[in-house]
């Protein structure tokens, strides 16, 4: 875009927290209603890309820098891997449910899996979108 007005900047920045909240809701309630890690993760990425589309290029890394998103994606993947190792330590199978089935079934393991996947997918796709926006404003070819 050639001119990014202040109105576009303010409107996109004010709408982004609701999109991020909806993404977090989809991730945490994934075992009770339609949703889950992937759906919530992609909506988190949309919430990260929306303010970046409206603001000027000096302010794009004000909330989360590209390095922080890269660290977030790595941490998410390592967390998912560690959950698998916990499954091996408890029952001997990768990614098996380590909590024994008590009187009422609970969904702690699925909840943590959803968190890990949501963090990883959101950070990864958000990073890709932010790099595309940077590429379109400062092209790298010469």
């Amino acid at each position, binding site marked *: 875009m050639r001119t990014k007005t202040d109105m576009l900047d303010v409107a996109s920045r004010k709408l982004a927290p609701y999109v991020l909240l909806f993404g977090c809701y989809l991730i945490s309630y994934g075992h*009770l*209603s*339609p949703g889950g890690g*992937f759906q919530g993760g992609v909506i988190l990425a949309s919430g990260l890309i929306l303010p970046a589309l409206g603001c000027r290029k000096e302010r794009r890394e004000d909330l989360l820098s590209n390095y922080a998103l890269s660290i977030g994606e790595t941490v998410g993947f390592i967390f998912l891997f560690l959950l698998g190792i916990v499954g091996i330590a408890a029952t001997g199978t990768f990614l098996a449910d380590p909590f024994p089935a008590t009187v009422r079934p609970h969904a702690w393991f699925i909840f943590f899996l959803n968190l890990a996947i949501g963090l990883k*997918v959101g950070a990864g796709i958000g990073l*890709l979108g932010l790099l595309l926006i940077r590429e379109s404003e400062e092209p790298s*070819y010469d």
Partner: protein
Amino acid sequence: MIRILVIGLFCLGLWGILISRSLLRKIIGLSILNSSVVVLFILAGRLDGKSAPILSAVREGSIVDPLPQALMLTAIVVSLSVTAVGLILAVKIYRSCGSLDIKEIEESPDEYDH
């Protein structure tokens, strides 16, 4: 009838890939191809049941099979990855060869400018 339409969607995506001259339009055809397979699996699961596979919302007799839906979640994410990598490669080809037309890319000279 539904079977014919889904096969028609698959053939539309395949024909779009084969006949297009521009690289971006081939990738549009690839995306349509991926979506047609997802539509096939979901419709095959749907025609056997009557309500969504969420236990708090089961109203009538049988639910829809949840296994094709779980497989198709993976398929949609893989389709996104393929489209993203393909599009970025297409833009790289455009920047090095100067055009998106398949015939001109095949005839352009090899240049390595590392």
